[in-house]
């Protein structure tokens, strides 16, 4: 580190406590900033600005030595404002706030200037311009810092209860971990049974263990846990409040039967005359209008699908416990919880609308999820894989990877699981019927985790063929209904014409329905791929930008089962920090009313979406309820008299930045 300016006579330390003594710490971030911006020149220039008592350049300001440098300079130069010019405040502001607070400075006396993401990284080939821009940005920060005022972050109590939205394997893991730590958990699931997607899989890679055999006991464990309240067939309708104190409205959709009376005996289904495609089996086979979702369902209760019910009342007559109630209405529960874990899951890409590789046009092209149900012993065919056109068992099976993944026309990301489940599916059928012949048409085979490569090798040893290429033409033989594929074998450099009895599309992971609704309810950010965003992709992978809200599983990107389960546990662990401490620190940034200026016009009141501004009728002016104010500042802009100000973002502070975007340059006359 090098001090650029530090020659001031230290004995002249201010007697006037109002004198702003600014220290500026320029970070090189290794070569991330230092390789583009001339940090020395920047520091020299900044050192000439009024009020700047010291400037310092560090290789890594966030490192121990970098922070120690800030702390020693605060002491040495009696600094009362600190400007750090480095990366993004969104990741590093808390670090430096804590750093200056240790030295007895109010944490809001830190001004953070972004000269990496907003400068060196985006002007990599324009070093001079980047250096000039860095000077401007830091000058803006220095002038703003002089106007910063001390604020107090406030503590709020945390209700020691948790809400988990989505009872797939990730959500169930969160709920179990929290419950085992002694916290009350509400587990909300929109489907009639918990279990999520994993309940539908036949066997799971790489070890090929039976999915429901390992999930079933976990589902029962969830149901048995005294600290978990399962709210199946329910949805989150409204969320209000903030970290530690969320008020949530849950809607319980009517099952049209009394769950306390229903025993799950399915006598009602036996007599029901209505048959509809069975969604649990991906539309293969049928279920009745009143049905138990699947044999291992938790809770093991029937549900009446009113849309398809013909109101014959046969089920009511058949039900020995008198559980059926056709007039049931939705009911609601209001919850107060301290934390919310969103594990809202995914759905598989639907190739129907685009007819990807002929799906939807030709009978004998199915998706991998459909194949999964056909493989399953409890599936529509009792575990016999048959082709839809004639219900015959196929011999030649083709698999197409990356359907709805790694494709600019659909989703550009890799779904991460399709290579492995295709390998697994081919293995399973090959093991069941060794006479079958399997060809996997792939772009790249991705087997990154433990046991995956071994599974890949195993399928090769079994005789599964791998062909690197995408089908360019898919046709159906009008007589045999076989699928004829023209595909380039890119490794051999040859065009191949192949014929399959059945073709399976490895459809990718896409955002679940309702992800938008939960995003808006929880005020989360959605990425360009439609999935929810975490607070930091590497260091805060299960946190969100909303304090007290965490994400697990595929809601924040494609994941396999071990990854989703780990995230479930990670959420529980992160949530426990709040639940156990029973308090959370909230930002000190709020709106503030100047009572001498407020005329009580009430223009601000409807501006606040949090009902944080109340009218003090007696005094005839507005009051901000600090616990409710989230500090957006929208009311401030609406205030016609200037009575409202937003702390830390006061007009004067913003205008100081605006003014210092520019500087005077003497024009030669």
């Amino acid at each position, binding site marked *: 580190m090098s001090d650029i300016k530090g020659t001031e006579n230290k004995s002249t330390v201010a007697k006037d406590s109002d004198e702003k003594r600014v220290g500026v710490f320029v970070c090189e971030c290794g070569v991330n900033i230092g390789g583009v911006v001339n940090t020395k020149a920047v520091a020299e220039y900044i050192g000439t600005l009024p009020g700047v008592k010291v400037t310092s350049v560090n290789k890594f300001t966030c490192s121990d030595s970098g922070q120690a440098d800030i702390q020693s300079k605060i002491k040495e130069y009696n600094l009362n404002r600190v400007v750090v010019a480095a990366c993004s405040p969104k990741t590093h502001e808390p670090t430096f706030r804590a750093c200056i607070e240790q030295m007895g400075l109010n944490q809001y006396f830190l001004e953070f200037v972004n000269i*990496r993401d907003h400068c060196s990284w985006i002007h990599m080939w324009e070093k001079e311009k980047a250096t000039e821009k860095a000077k401007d940005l830091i000058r803006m920060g220095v002038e703003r810092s002089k106007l910063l005022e001390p604020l107090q972050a406030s503590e709020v109590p945390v209700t020691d209860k948790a809400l988990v939205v989505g009872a797939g394997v990730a959500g169930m893991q969160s709920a179990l971990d929290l419950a085992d730590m002694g916290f009350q958990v509400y587990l909300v699931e929109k489907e009639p049974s918990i279990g999520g997607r994993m309940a539908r899989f036949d066997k799971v890679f790489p070890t090929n263990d039976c999915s429901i055999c390992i999930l079933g006991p976990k589902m029962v464990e969830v149901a048995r846990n005294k600290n978990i309240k399962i709210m199946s067939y329910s949805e989150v309708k409204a969320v209000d409040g903030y970290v530690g104190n969320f008020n949530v409205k849950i809607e319980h959709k009517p099952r049209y039967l009394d769950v306390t009376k229903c025993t799950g005996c399915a006598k009602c289904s036996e007599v029901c005359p209505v048959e509809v495609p069975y969604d649990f089996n991906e539309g293969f086979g049928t279920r009745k209008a009143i049905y138990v979702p699947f044999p291992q369902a938790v809770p093991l209760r029937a549900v009446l699908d009113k849309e398809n019910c013909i109101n014959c009342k046969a089920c009511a007559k058949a039900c020995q416990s008198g559980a059926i109630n056709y007039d049931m209405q939705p009911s609601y529960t209001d919850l107060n919880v301290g934390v919310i874990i969103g594990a809202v899951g995914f759905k598989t890409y639907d190739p129907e609308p685009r007819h990807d590789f002929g799906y939807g046009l030709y009978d004998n092209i199915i998706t991998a999820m459909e194949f999964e149900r056909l493989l399953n012993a409890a599936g529509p065919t009792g575990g016999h894989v048959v082709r839809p056109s004639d219900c015959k068992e196929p011999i030649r099976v083709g698999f197409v990877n990356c359907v709805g993944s790694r494709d600019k026309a659909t989703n550009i990301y890799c779904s991460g699981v399709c290579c492995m489940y295709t390998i697994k599916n081919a293995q399973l059928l090959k093991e069941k019927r060794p006479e079958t012949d399997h060809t996997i048409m792939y772009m790249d085979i991705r087997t990154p985790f433990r046991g995956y490569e071994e599974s890949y090798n195993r399928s090769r040893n079994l005789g599964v063929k791998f062909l690197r290429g995408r089908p360019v033409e898919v046709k159906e033989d009008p007589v045999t209904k076989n699928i004829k594929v023209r595909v380039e074998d890119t490794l051999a450099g040859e065009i191949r014409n192949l014929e399959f009895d059945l073709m399976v599309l490895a459809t990718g992971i896409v955002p679940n329905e309702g992800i938008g609704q939960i995003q808006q309810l929880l005020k989360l950010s959605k990425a360009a791929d439609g999935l929810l965003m975490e607070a930091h992709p590497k260091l805060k992978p299960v946190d969100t930008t909303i304090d007290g809200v965490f994400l697990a599983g595929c809601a924040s990107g494609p994941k396999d089962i071990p990854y989703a389960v780990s995230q479930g546990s990670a959420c529980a662990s992160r949530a426990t920090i709040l639940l156990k401490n029973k308090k959370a620190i909230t930002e000190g940034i709020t709106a503030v009313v100047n009572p001498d200026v407020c005329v009580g016009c009430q223009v601000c009141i409807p501006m606040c979406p949090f009902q944080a501004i109340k009218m003090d009728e007696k005094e005839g002016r507005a009051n901000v309820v600090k616990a409710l104010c989230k500090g957006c500042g929208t009311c401030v802009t609406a205030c016609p008299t200037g009575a409202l100000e937003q702390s830390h973002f006061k007009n004067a502070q913003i205008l100081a930045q605006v003014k210092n975007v520019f500087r005077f*340059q003497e024009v030669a006359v």
Partner: protein
Amino acid sequence: MNDSISDGISAEAAAAPKTDGWEPKIVAFCCNWCSYGGADSAGMGRFQQPASARIIRVMCSGRIDPLHVFNAFLEGADAVLVTGCHIGDCHYVNGNDKTKIKYKYLENVAHELGIEKERLQLNWISASEGEKFANFIRDVTEQIKKLGPSPLKPAGVV
């Protein structure tokens, strides 16, 4: 947009020496949650863009006051950008809806003052849209380079 005004400025701009390598100065107001994050994402993705924008962070686009915008012009901004979360994605429920309403008036006043429409722009950019942020800055910079410096820019200000 008033052609006669813009033509007048263009002619003036063409005569000035700055066109060679002249970089406009653009004040970009960004909300903490979306567009500021979008600018960060542009950095993380190394989406190169002209060194013209100076970002001022506010918590919500709803905080962006006409006072800030017009001050920026008076101080010398060649363009001012108002940015925030996509409608429906506001971190504070609907602050950006209010921004949208306010912006209409702001735009009208700016137009009446003779500020060309290119110099004041509104855009919704999410925290993941780094490329969009970079493209936006590039587009605006090109438009402003054609127009030349703002007529409101005080003499001697850079």
